[in-house]
């Protein structure tokens, strides 16, 4: 993965596959760290599975016996001196309150810290592929307003119009890019 936004996209796809109706993508930067968290209300994993998810030879896919999503994220975080944590509550044991939270901590002042990349493309790609589930994206940076998008709010306005409509996706992309780079009035 060349940019962290691709890891983010990859991990969020797991949440959707786990049946999440809401997936939160939360990025919090300080002067020299970045915390990237993906929190969902999907089916969750058993403790036994959680122990194995960063093993590259563990996967739920059936097409081949390798699963690199979380191992790659773990590697990206640890090579900056950071950490990866996975917490999960399986639906069988927690019928009311299940889901998974993946938290990666990066030391952004480390020379091996990958660039964040195109976060806006990651968010629009997720929405394009999964217009019927909700995403909350929030990126907090020091000295700037947080960049935020909540598809639940957009859905209220759009009614039965799909979030995957091209004009809607374009609006989302523009809305986020303007938050990153406010037009000078």
């Amino acid at each position, binding site marked *: 993965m060349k940019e962290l936004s691709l890891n983010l996209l990859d991990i969020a796809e797991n949440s959707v596959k786990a049946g999440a109706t809401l997936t939160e993508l939360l990025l919090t930067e300080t002067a020299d760290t970045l915390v990237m968290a993906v929190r969902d209300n999907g089916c969750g994993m058993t403790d036994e599975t959680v122990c194995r998810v960063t093993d590259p030879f563990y996967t739920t896919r059936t097409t081949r016996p390798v699963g690199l999503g979380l191992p790659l994220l773990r590697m990206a975080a640890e090579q900056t001196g950071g950490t990866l944590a996975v917490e999960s509550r399986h639906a069988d044991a927690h019928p009311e309150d299940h889901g998974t939270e993946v938290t990666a901590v990066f030391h952004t002042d480390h020379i091996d810290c990958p660039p964040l990349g195109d976060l806006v493309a990651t968010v629009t*790609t997720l929405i394009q592929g999964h217009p019927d589930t909700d995403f909350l994206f929030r990126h907090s940076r020091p000295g700037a307003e947080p960049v935020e998008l909540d598809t639940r*709010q957009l859905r209220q306005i759009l009614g039965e119009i799909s979030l995957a409509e091209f004009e809607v996706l374009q609006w989302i992309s*523009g809305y986020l890019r303007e938050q990153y780079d406010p037009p000078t009035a």
Partner: protein
Amino acid sequence: MKSLAELQAIKERMQGKVALREGSSDKRVVVGMATCGIAAGARPVLNAFVEQVNEAGLTASVTVTQTGCIGICQYEPVVEVFEAGKEKVTYVKMSADKVARVVEEHLKGGRPVAEYTIGNAQL
């Protein structure tokens, strides 16, 4: 500044159009978006399809969707085109630059771009 009011206006504009479109899609473009696809560059390929299908005015007949691992990770980014009554076409090692020809020749013109397909691929 983009505002939620602007989104409201988009909704009102779309409402008429969407009713016309339902159920009429006859071609389906599926982009593999598992770890292997994403790492190989599937995100810009997907976004190029979404954009160019719209620019070509094909949204009534073509839908662009995502799927997981197709199983041929070494050929990623992989794009499959499904059309009722025809054999599936599998494009491999795609890039955003290759999308224009697929949209023009295959999705619009009905002639698959043979040189991008898996049959022509060299590992």
